[in-house]
């Protein structure tokens, strides 16, 4: 904060900032609620795979409503990229810009389509509003092309759109839009999505104008600055509570969907209190960029770092550009965490999940009690083909939850989405009604959660019987490297893809062809346990045994005999 700021100013700010930040959040929330309600795409509407944000006139993000953490900060550089192509002086009220490119548009993969609009008070540019929604298809070699065989460059993943003026002074640029639509599958519903995204910004614009009017431009700008400064102080305050030092952590992805070698990831975390508390994340030593789609552009990396900070420093921290001030990220150019075009990025979600593990792992060396042991990561299933029953082509995307790592004081949750993902599953009654598939089992996997004082969460298994010839593209991980434990716990179980219960398939890539009647078994990883298993309470172990989440055999392997006997006796009474 400016040193000249008077004490009087600071004390009114103690109230004004909280009121103002609520007003900002209220705008982004309103935009978010409107987008979710008005979009057509199931991804946005049902799975809340969407996010809204507001920015100041310099393009700094000042508030965000994200519904999955993957989007936290993913809109961060949207306006910076926009301003590179369209100088401020060229912007007019009623303009709106569309973008999806991961290298030039501020996106993280092509399916996330951003619409950004400038906000004017009279002739003065006072800020921007933007929203991002997941479109079901943006072209590319296959529906949902990411991680498909032969998809080795971003060009094959879909249409790349840099920030382009889609609305000019309130008028849709039909030439551009029809060009975009012609390059996508299932394009007939996209006008509805675009309309929703534009309308969402219009609400944001109106509300921002009202807010500016209420406070006056000068105070409005002061409060924006104050909001960023406050969040910065807040984050630094939390960092100061941590010890200074430097710690590193390593982990790896099974493969990149293209070449079968593991993909090493490494971070060196440094915490310094001087000159001001800050953190440095250095990813030197991580794999060079790969030809499979697991590359992760800076925005996605930043979103993951911001997730890890909110999760470990303070979940209430505001989501704004202040994170950029207190965190320094060093990501070697040309590496998997800062690829050069045209490296493909469609599978960045899998990498972000592993990066979140990596960051939590590094933080575990600083504040073990605040983090979880390693969880399952990602398992997303892409099944596609021609449905002879309904006479149409289909693509079915389903994500499976798995174990969350054990944590100080709590077992890890069973069968949940973790880290940057929080997307619900497809109900079996919906899935079977829409696709030629029958689900034969969907259940927890016993003994998949690592033993510990606080057990790792259990994995899930879902068996798909194909009622038509089907292609399967896998987006998963942790089939080779077990989810790590913390504080003396045991690791979680590996994930598995299996054809007809005998033929093992890799964690990523495809398509693998299934004939009618064949079965795909998808099993996520479990999660690592937290703390010495000998310290587990007999009551907790008893419930696990009674519920069959842990078998007696595994209990005898992982826990002291006396504890198991005691737990078995208790279990018999449950």
């Amino acid at each position: 904060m400016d040193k000249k700021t008077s004490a009087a100013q600071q004390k009114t700010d103690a109230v004004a900032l909280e009121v103002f930040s609520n007003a900002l959040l209220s705008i982004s929330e309103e935009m978010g609620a409107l987008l979710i309600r008005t979009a057509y795409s199931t991804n946005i509407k049902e799975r809340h795979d969407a996010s809204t944000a507001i920015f100041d006139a310099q393009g700094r993000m000042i508030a965000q409503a994200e519904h999955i953490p993957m989007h936290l900060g993913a809109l961060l550089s949207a306006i910076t990229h926009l301003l590179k192509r369209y100088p401020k002086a060229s912007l007019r009220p009623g303009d709106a810009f569309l973008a999806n490119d991961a290298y030039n548009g501020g996106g993280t993969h092509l399916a996330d389509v951003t619409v950004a609009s400038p906000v004017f008070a009279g002739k003065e540019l006072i800020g921007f509003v933007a929203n991002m929604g997941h479109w079901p298809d943006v072209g590319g070699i296959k529906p949902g092309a990411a991680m498909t065989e032969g998809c080795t460059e971003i060009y094959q993943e879909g249409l790349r759109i840099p920030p382009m003026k889609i609305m000019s002074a309130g008028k849709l640029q039909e030439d551009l839009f029809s060009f975009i639509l012609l390059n996508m599958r299932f394009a007939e519903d996209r006008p509805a999505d675009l309309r929703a995204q534009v309308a969402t910004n219009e609400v944001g614009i109106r509300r921002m104008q009202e807010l500016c009017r209420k406070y006056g431009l000068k105070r409005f700008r002061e409060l924006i600055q104050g909001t960023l400064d406050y969040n910065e102080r807040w984050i630094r305050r939390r960092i100061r509570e941590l010890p200074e030092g430097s710690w590193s952590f390593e982990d790896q992805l099974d493969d990149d969907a293209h070449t079968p070698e593991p993909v090493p990831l490494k971070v060196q975390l440094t915490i310094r209190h001087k000159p001001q508390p800050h953190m440095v994340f250095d990813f030197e030593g991580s794999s060079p960029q790969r030809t499979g789609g697991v590359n992760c552009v800076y925005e996605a990396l930043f979103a993951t770092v911001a997730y890890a900070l909110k999760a470990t420093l303070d979940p209430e921290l505001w989501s704004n550009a202040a994170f950029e001030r207190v965190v320094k990220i060093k990501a070697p150019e040309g590496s998997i965490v800062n690829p050069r075009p045209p490296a493909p990025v469609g599978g960045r979600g899998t990498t972000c999940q592993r990066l979140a593990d990596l960051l939590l792992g590094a933080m575990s060396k600083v504040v073990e009690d605040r983090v979880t042991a390693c969880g399952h990561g990602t398992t997303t299933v892409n099944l596609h083909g021609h449905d002879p029953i309904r006479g149409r082509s289909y693509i079915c995307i389903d994500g499976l939850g798995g174990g969350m790592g054990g944590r100080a004081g709590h077992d890890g949750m069973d069968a949940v989405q973790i880290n940057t993902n929080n997307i619900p599953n497809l109900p079996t009654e919906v899935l079977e009604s829409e696709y030629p598939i029958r689900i034969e089992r969907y259940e927890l996997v016993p003994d998949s959660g690592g033993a510990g004082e606080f057990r790792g969460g259990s994995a899930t298994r879902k068996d798909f019987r194909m009622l038509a010839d089907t292609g399967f593209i896998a987006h998963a991980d942790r089939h080779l490297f077990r989810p790590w434990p913390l504080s003396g716990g045991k690791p979680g179980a590996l994930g598995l893809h299996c054809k007809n219960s005998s033929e093992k398939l890799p964690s990523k890539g495809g398509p693998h062809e299934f004939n009618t009647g064949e079965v795909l078994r998808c099993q996520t990883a479990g999660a690592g346990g937290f703390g010495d298993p000998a310290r587990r309470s007999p009551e907790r172990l008893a419930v696990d045994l009674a519920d069959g989440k842990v078998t007696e055999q595994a209990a005898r392997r992982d826990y002291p005999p006396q504890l198991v006997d005691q737990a078995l006796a208790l279990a018999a009474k449950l």
Partner: protein
Amino acid sequence: MKYSVGVDIGGTFTDVVLMDARGAIVAEHKVDTTPAALEACFVEALSRASEKCRPEDIHRILHATTVATNSVLEGKGARTALVVTEGFRDILEIARQRRPSLYDLKAERARPLVPRRLCIEVRERLGSDGSVVTPLQDSELQRIAACVEGTRAESVVIALLFSYLNASHEQKLRDYLSKSFPQKLVIASSDVIPEFREFERTSTAVLVGYLKPIFAAYTKNLSNELVSRGHAAGKLLIMNSAGGVMSPDAARDRPHAIVESGPAAGVIAAATLAEQLGEKNVISFDMGGTTAKASLIESGAYRTTTEYEIGGGVHQSLAVRFTGYPIKAPMIDLTECSAGGGSIASVDDVGVLKVGPRSAGADPGPACYGRGGTEPTVTDANVVLGRINPDYFVGGEARLDRRLARAAIESRIARPLGMTVMEAAAGIIDIVNAHMARILRVVSVARGLDPRDFALIAFGGAGPLHAADLAADLGIPRVIVPEAPGVFSALGLLWADLRADFSSTVRRNVTRDHAEHIQGALGRVEAEAQAWLEREKVPAKRRALARSAEMRYPLQNYEINVPLPAGRVNAAWIARACKAFHAVHQRLYSYCDREEQVQLVNVRVAAVGRTDRPRPRLLDRGGASAQPALKGRRKVHFQEAGSFVDCPVYERNRLRAGNRVAGPALIEQADSTVVVPPSMSAAVDVHGRIVLGLKVKSAPSRKAQWAKA
């Protein structure tokens, strides 16, 4: 004289009102709620209200209760076993695989109400068209019965895949298990809610199994208490979450439908008041001790949702769906936030003032209660600012200690921030208002509506204290404060119709090809609804069936509720139904596609038995001057003035119809205080309601301009 009583058990207080046949409130009270003994609270509240009348003078007793929600949140329901399709034992464990908090690594998900050890897999399978893939063998029935025996469960719930299309397997199991275990409660999901999406259907059926024995005991205890106090059986009616009342027997059979009964009563009260006032569009705003709730009444109708969950997470003012216990039954659509009189204010370690989400509750309560609370709350701020009269809280039954309120704010807020106590207290009010403004916006603007076209009905003990500032912030032109705001929800009980909801999944496009199918489903559900009205002994002329449907465009995975036309399903009916859907879609989502087919997912029928609503009593007329009600003057802090202003204080009881009060002023009554800021004035209408509006004629709202044109 005949009386009606409404007893509304809330989290902090149990409210009760006694109303005479002319619609006058004869008695109103608040008693502390003891969660462990709700029946006792009910009895105490009832006796307090009916001190001056004989049991036989009371002809209706209406009741809203938290017993169902408490049992779920505290895990105190019946031991329940669950029978599921083979391969799906973990349907409750997996749920929809979401976690309730995005960033809080310590968060816990709602634990399944049936632990895994009590879940039993049965060998059977239906296909997605309802056809039998694996038949249910008789030998399997015996095996399942043996498993059930071993669970020692009180209730058994059967929830099989695709039972909404073909209930035969569930029915076979239900009949067999009922016969084998006459003492156990056996519930089939297709009997509870024959709708698709297996987790939500199973969750709803499990709630019935889990709650029914608890609720049966509860209603039995209440009935016994009533009989022992000389009340004839049959007077008692229970509020449900959809805004209707039902007999205790009916409620016992549908305990999942009564979980949000108290908040629903508040919305019914607001909707009824809106109707009496001729206000079409209203936001109902209920601020109590721990939460503030907002709901929308649009064109006279309140909204229901079937996406309600008990105990789910909230992120960015939106529910994180699928993280609690979903209930597939219509509930009044409410948005709430943790902001109430008891919300605690604190300074964070970076020097910013925060309010909530923690609440001091009733015990120890705000610092000014003098029960040992040392943390300052919103109520303490209101006391320090002169907005609450410490000697007239709950009509003077409780004395508040202004010094304790001051001391708490001084030591915890003012000193750390280098502010005066007044500045700190005013800051607390500003911040809690900012939180509440967010939910008011979520219910209106996010649905494409402009708050400037709405009136705000403010109630709950704290509602009238904060409503005027909120209205000013949102541009809401009018605030209406009902006669007894503190017990307004209890009053809503007296105004509710008898109601139960029935449904069935159709999942067919609305075309002539499927006319017969749709007609069949409607016919079955309406017959069920009629049978219920019959059982509840509703006279024919008071019966009404309200048809609606969840509809969508075929590729959407998200339905909206649309009223269905009357009459048989034929070409004209189909055209009208589709038109209605497009129109609602347009209104809610600002677009529609009239060329697209429309799919009807669920038909829904509300069986309604109309209640006579007592006409509101006329208040004696007075002149424009409120002078006779003036009880004194004091210094009160108004947010818009930013300072203390010496202002008149009026006694609400002595106000007469036609009186006008210009701000700045306070109007005090036993159960609340109405703040009239300097820019506003208040008028008392013929029925004693207070209507606040801006003094200076504001620019007419968009709608008013249209109306003029």
